[in-house]
């Protein structure tokens, strides 16, 4: 790869890590950024009108492998990630077998390395088999680099287990990410409890179920000085709780998904189970609160919770369909369309939420910028204005359950570069071994 030498010319470089937001050339040599400025060396790639940003980082994806390969594989999921502008993703532990020991972590890392689309930082389980009872061997996973643990999809119900996990993880200053859901309040729940659930006859999923667990976990983390990450913030109450906790110095970070800042429970109308997700789509007021939380820094990251499900599972009655939505290939465009073009976030803030922020909250080195000489060349180039229509059938994911199917979005990924190698070029996948400049 030492022969790699190219320059993106005339890009708007948006790099929250260095505070840079200006038109410049970005020279990539080998796997590193060689220069940012007026220099131009090697192959020139016209980036006029494009934004050059640090490669996107997703704190929350489900790649389904091992065990769920009908819905997604590490290769297909990371290919989708690269097409979406990502250079790093954090797959959750709810695979089969569960990622609660070193063997599965190593398997996922190897599969991702072989595919070469995107770096992965597997999240280990908090408890064995996600059962919420016995701690998984956090230390052995931490020893090979895992620094975040979550039973995502299986909220830790026991306060004692949660308290022990937070305390034990302090050994490595690791993060505990607890899916916040009080299970007795959501037994059988189908849709956010409110006007829509009442009208549609879908069992209500009260917002309190999320907030009760967030409160508990914030109190526990505060008492221990432990690191807590709140995933997929979906309610106005959670935003306020995290905001207040941050103000008093709790070591908490938070993420929000594109569907929770762009869609509401009105989407359940028609009963298309593509709109069924956990936590559920909420109300306009919740969407507004999540947006405000992103804008004021309460919420550190936009994470997709990319959750592929095979069509035969989603094409069931709402009651029987599993929860989850795709997000990797649409999140940048949804963020630009819903938050940047509407003035909720500046472009630099959007890049912060999609790259720099998530990399920082998870201590992921080499991603999230800065775009500066000597740094790994992990980049995304996107056209912030280009309009395109989502066609779920054409997604790289093995699944089709994208709620934005058919929507016209504004903002399109052109190139993704992982350590100097194109993983996506002109919006198309570049497989490992394919010549990088083939379509130049």
């Amino acid at each position, binding site marked *: 790869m030492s022969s790699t030498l190219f320059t993106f010319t005339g890009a708007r470089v948006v790099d929250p890590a260095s505070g840079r937001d200006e038109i410049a050339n970005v020279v990539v040599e080998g796997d590193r950024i060689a220069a940012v400025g007026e220099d131009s060396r090697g192959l020139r790639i016209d980036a006029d009108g494009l934004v050059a940003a640090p490669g996107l980082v997703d704190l929350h994806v489900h790649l389904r492998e091992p065990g769920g390969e009908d819905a997604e594989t590490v290769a297909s999921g990371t290919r989708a990630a690269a097409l979406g502008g990502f250079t790093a993703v954090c797959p959750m532990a709810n695979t089969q077998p569960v990622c609660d020991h070193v063997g599965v972590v190593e398997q996922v890392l190897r599969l991702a390395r072989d595919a070469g689309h995107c770096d992965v930082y597997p999240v280990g389980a908090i408890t064995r088999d996600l059962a919420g009872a016995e701690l998984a061997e956090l230390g052995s996973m931490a020893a090979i680099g895992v620094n975040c643990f979550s039973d995502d999809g299986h909220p830790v119900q026991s306060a004692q287990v949660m308290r022990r996990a937070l305390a034990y993880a302090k050994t490595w200053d690791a993060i505990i990410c607890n899916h916040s859901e009080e299970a007795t309040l959501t037994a059988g729940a189908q849709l956010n409890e409110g006007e829509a659930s009442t*009208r549609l006859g879908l069992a209500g999923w009260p917002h309190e179920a999320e907030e009760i667990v967030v409160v508990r976990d914030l109190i526990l983390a505060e008492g221990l000085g432990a690191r807590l990450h709140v995933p997929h913030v979906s309610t106005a109450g959670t935003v306020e709780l995290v905001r207040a906790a941050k103000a008093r110095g709790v070591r908490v970070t938070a993420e929000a998904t594109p569907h929770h800042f762009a869609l509401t429970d009105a989407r359940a109308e028609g009963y298309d189970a593509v709109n069924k997700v956990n936590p559920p789509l909420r109300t306009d007021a919740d969407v507004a609160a999540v947006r405000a939380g992103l804008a004021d820094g309460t919420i550190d990251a936009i994470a997709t919770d990319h959750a592929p499900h095979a069509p035969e599972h989603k*094409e069931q*009655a709402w009651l029987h369909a599993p929860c989850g939505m795709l997000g990797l290939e649409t999140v940048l465009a949804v963020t630009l369309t819903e938050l940047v073009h509407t003035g909720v976030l500046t472009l630099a803030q959007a890049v912060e939420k999609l790259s720099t922020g998530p990399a920082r909250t998870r201590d992921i080195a080499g991603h999230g910028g800065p775009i500066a000489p000597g740094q790994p060349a992990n980049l995304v180039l996107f056209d912030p204005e280009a309009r395109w229509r989502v066609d779920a059938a054409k997604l790289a994911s093995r699944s089709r359950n994208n709620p934005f199917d058919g929507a016209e979005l504004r903002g399109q990924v052109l190139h993704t570069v992982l350590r100097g190698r194109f993983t996506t070029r002109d919006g198309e996948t570049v497989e490992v071994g394919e010549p990088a400049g083939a379509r130049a």
Partner: protein
Amino acid sequence: MIGPDLLDMADLDAEAITTILDTAEGFKDVALRPIKKVPTLRGRTVCNLFFEDSTRTRISFEIAEKRLSADVINFSAKGSSVAKGESFKDTALTLQAMGVDAIVIRHAASGAAQQLTRWVDARVLNAGDGTHQHPTQALLDLYTIRERFGRVEGLEVAVVGDVVHSRVARSVCQGLVTMGAHVTVVGPPTLLPPALETWGVRVSHDLDAVLPGLDVCYLLRVQRERMHAQFFPTSREYARIWGLDADRLAVLPEHAAILHPGPMNRGVEITADVADAPNALITEQVSNGIAVRMSVLYLLLGGEEGAEA
């Protein structure tokens, strides 16, 4: 505007409901004839697709279909391809390929009837989907009320009981409000879903305060099992506070009618003597159900061919 499907009472305006009820009146006479059959739907195939056990509704639809001379297929999920793991979608596509003209569907999942319309060209009649809707029940209730009072508009109606789990409550409240009745929903807060006021109804927890002003007291089925999930402590306590017994019957105006969609839990929401009282219209509801379902089948399927009957 009626059709192409009957999924949700919200799809019917007052004019459509009136048309359905007027048409049902004509069909009610069929039951009095020595040969209880008209040739209206001869050559049409109707499938009763029942994913959930139901005796009353299925038999009512089947009688309605047979009195209209339709060819009737009964598909029950038990012991069928569904029990062997066939998906809802594949069942729908199979019926589509067989070319049935109408599907009457009962399903445990809210929204199933609407989902079915995506996969079939046949007319879809919702015979109850989860806790969502049961439109023919609401229509037969409106018919029964109109038959008794000559109108629905302006009547004071209480809908009492387990609203949160009830597809009947959703359909009946919508139908009554559309037809201009004044509806009060009554029950313990645990059994009333949020945002009920968006239905255009009043909400009360005090049945005794509501009873004296009523024209119609509509009692919903309250399953005893609900007490195991702490919706109320015991069925005895429920009956004491929200059940209709002889003492409360005495408070109800003499002209008032009592309706219940069945099956009744005698001793919970209604006592045996009230169920058998002269102002209980429960058996009328059942017989009107056939005429109303004939009317709906005719209006959705009959079209021009039906006119010659």
